[in-house]
């Protein structure tokens, strides 16, 4: 086999990997960091949901959530969050193709979706607290409800601030394709928030 044929069959890496590169996410250290953070956050949410399930199981005093919680509004909130996940992934697709306008538009839509979700959540809480006199001290049902949805709401608020900062940066800084890593990491956080809500919606509202 001549040298030309050999060179075609040999692997030619574009660049030599740094010895400190994480093997799980080469080229994007921040992505591994975000995944590890999300794993820890998932354990926190998971512990809260597991405790909720364990407290509720065989609990004869647990009220029917349908008597207190509105499903239509919550279904709308779920749909809003799913839509915001789509806009987030489209924003990432935009910057990966060098389309900064697409990044800005879909990031703005994602932030709007998050804000709309928070608005609906605030409306629901106000109805329950002011209208129905339900508070975190009333019962185990109300305590677990407010803790789970409140903790998730804090995450949504943090995500809105995070993505809002990226949106501002997209206008003030010259974002390039290389900055897609930053958007990808932010997207992981936002999709995680959506994923957790999918579970909370099912376990707290529907079951």
């Amino acid at each position, binding site marked *: 086999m001549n040298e030309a044929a050999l060179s075609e069959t040999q*692997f030619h*890496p574009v660049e030599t990997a740094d010895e400190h590169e994480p*093997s*799980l*996410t*080469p*080229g994007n250290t921040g*992505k*591994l960091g975000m995944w*590890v953070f999300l794993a*820890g956050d*998932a*354990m926190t949410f*998971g*512990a809260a*949901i*597991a*405790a909720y399930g*364990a407290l509720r*199981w*065989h*609990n*004869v*005093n*647990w*009220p*029917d959530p*349908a*008597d*207190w*919680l*509105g*499903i*239509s*509004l919550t*279904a709308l909130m779920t*749909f809003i969050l*799913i839509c915001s*996940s789509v806009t987030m*992934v*489209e924003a990432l*697709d935009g910057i990966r*193709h060098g389309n900064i306008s697409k990044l800005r538009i879909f990031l703005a839509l994602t932030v709007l979706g998050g804000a709309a979700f928070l608005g609906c959540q605030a*409306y*629901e809480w106000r109805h329950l607290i002011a*209208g129905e006199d339900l508070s975190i001290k*009333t*019962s*185990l*049902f109300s305590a677990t409800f407010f803790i789970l949805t409140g903790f998730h709401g804090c995450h949504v608020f943090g995500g809105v601030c995070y993505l809002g900062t990226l949106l501002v940066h997209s206008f003030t800084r010259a974002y390039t394709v290389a900055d897609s890593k930053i958007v*990808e990491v932010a997207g992981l956080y936002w*999709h995680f928030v*959506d*994923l957790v809500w*999918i*579970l909370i919606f*099912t*376990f707290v509202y*529907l*079951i």
Partner: protein
Amino acid sequence: MAELTPSEGASSNPSALEHGGPGYITIFVYLTVLTGAELFVYAMGLATVLKVGLLVLLALTKAALVAMYFMHLALERKGLWIVAATPLMLVAFAYFMLRPDLSARAWVSSPAHQTIGHHEGEPTNDDAHAALVAPASARRLL
């Protein structure tokens, strides 16, 4: 030509995402349909075991779709799947370890009273039970 690993592909080659599976809009449609299915199961008035089983299955399917295609876990290296899957195992463990203990508590199984921070043997608050029952005037949000 150097072959990209799945993780490198996810990071640097958009075409791997474009041609590696369903599109984002397709996944959005799946998620919307599954959410509708959840609402349908909720409204059908099925037996509790069947309803809970179906709802949990639908929720986990939606969660898997978000993780695999929006978070691009399907394109990542398998080692990252271990990072993502570990919390699930710990949560399942926590639930099955907590449930037998918590279900056996008096304030769970007794239909009498239930207060936050109630200790067995201490006087209970009669109003706490009334708070659990939705008043006749309670309106659901929507």
